[in-house]
């Protein structure tokens, strides 16, 4: 890992401290919590990229030498595993972006609220309902914003990419182990579906 282990756990602590403090709705604490989360992901991403670079160097250590054939020791399985890992990392990033938007929208009413005139009597049911409606409105507005739609679009693409890479990996395993794959199953069901429709149409023509 490129980051110091102590720094990594400190970043976790900063993020958790910010997240669990029930009154941490002021701008500074929310920003601190977000920064902690961002740093956390940067450190995890650094570690992951370092691991990948070691792996790439291992695979390509003979690539510079002339006349040495490219090795496919794992029959492409390792590259599919790498693709899936990359897709999963992208998916986690997309999910984090969405969660950050949700968190920001949920806490915005707190940061904007005027807490100077607070009193225990104010914390009664009608006030709670009012406060909840502020949060609800904030979330609804955020969900219709372009920032959210863009983040959601990114999430959908990452989810599809991850599912496809996972399926490709599983189908490799199935092929090499003489088991039918989902793609072959879809081929078969398509033919069955077309036959069923033909049969239905023929039955309709019968007197």
């Amino acid at each position: 890992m490129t980051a110091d282990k102590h720094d990594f756990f400190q970043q976790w602590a900063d993020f958790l401290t910010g997240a669990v403090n029930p009154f941490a709705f002021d701008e500074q604490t929310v920003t601190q919590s977000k920064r902690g989360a961002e740093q956390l992901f940067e450190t995890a991403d650094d570690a992951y990229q370092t691991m990948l670079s070691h792996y790439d160097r291992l695979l390509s250590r003979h690539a510079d030498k002339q006349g040495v054939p490219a090795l496919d020791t794992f029959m492409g399985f390792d590259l599919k595993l790498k693709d899936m890992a990359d897709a999963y990392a992208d998916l986690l990033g997309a999910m984090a972006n969405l969660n950050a938007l949700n968190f920001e929208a949920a806490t915005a009413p707190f940061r904007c609220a005027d807490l100077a005139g607070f009193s225990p009597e104010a914390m009664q049911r009608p006030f709670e309902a009012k406060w909840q409606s502020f949060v609800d409105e904030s979330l609804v507005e955020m969900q219709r914003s372009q920032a959210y739609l863009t983040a959601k679009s990114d999430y959908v693409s990452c989810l599809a990419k991850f599912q496809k890479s996972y399926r490709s990996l599983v189908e490799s395993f199935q092929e090499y182990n003489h088991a039918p794959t989902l793609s072959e199953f879809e081929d078969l069901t398509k033919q069955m579906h077309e036959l069923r429709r033909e049969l239905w149409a023929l039955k309709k023509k019968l007197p």
Partner: protein
Amino acid sequence: MGAEKEIAMNPAIWGVSDLAEYQAKMQTGIENLADIHDCDVAIGETPKDAVFSIEKVTLYKYRPLDSSCTSDETLTREPILIAYSLFGRYNMLDLQSDRSVVRNLLAQGHTVYIIDWGNPNKSDRWLSYDDYVGRYLSDCVDFICHQQNIERLTLFGICEGGTFAACYASLFPEKLGALVLAVTPIDFHADLDAEEPRKRGYLGGMMRQLSPAQITDLIDSFGCLPGHLSGTVFREMTLLDTCKKYGPSLVEAVSGSKEAALNFLRMEKWLLDRPHHPAEAAKQWLIDLYHANRLIDGSFLVNGQPVLLENLNMPVLNIYAKHDHIIPPPESQALKGLVGNDCEYRELELNAGHIGAFVSRRANAAISEAISNWIPSIEHAKHPPQALS
């Protein structure tokens, strides 16, 4: 926040009396749940018989509430065929005895049929609207007309089932004496101009943002539109309510009377039982309809035939929910400007949400009464329809 303010606020939130009350509620909730068994949470219990099936689809006919009466002998109104959506189970219409659109219709002497679309899985990924409208719905209508010896019946479609029904009615108007649609989207872009964010549909916005390639990729990667994925999307539409429901409000929900706890559990049972949506039909729903809005301009095809809403010449009752966050009312109301000139068209607005329209007692009763009054007499069903002009 200053320490003084923190101290001042804490007793108000965690006052001793509030805590005691909360603990008492938790205790009641635990006692209620301990006394409830799986069989108590049954839904869709009104007796019915499977009368026809095609592949995974089953057509049920409900038994009359008065078992001594055979509905075939006393058929005074057109039978009604209910087509629900593929995104949930049909038994929401028969959630429990006091919140059942089906029972309300049976109580008024109607003959009620309902379609169960079955449990699609990846082997059904190639099913499309050509199958659901052109084969399954068509065969069910033909079966009922043959069984009851009539020319026409009343078709009642809900949500996506309403879109199925509208497509069928446009292609085969001569087969229907009346059409009832509930919370059915027709113009999927009608919410675009709404100024209030809440009045713009969540689904519509998302589908307009995604490209057809993205939607296709997502559905193809799963081999279907998984029920848990669509369930997650529905839950995130009301994010705060979802968090509260399974958080602070959960104790409230189960700590009332045992009957109130059962009501909550039945609703949850239905909400969490989401079937998978066949892939090709899901692509048509999300791409052709939500993204491209093809239903309103006649470019949506079923079995190669364009669906022309101007062919709707039978009485149409269009029910929508004022607080529907899934299908904003303008998406349903758009039908008014698209039906044929000869169409007797009426709207009914319910002061409820998308599901509340069927499970809240007041809305449930209103919907049942409106439908009951809309169904034509049996004499109407037995005469051949007039030729389309």
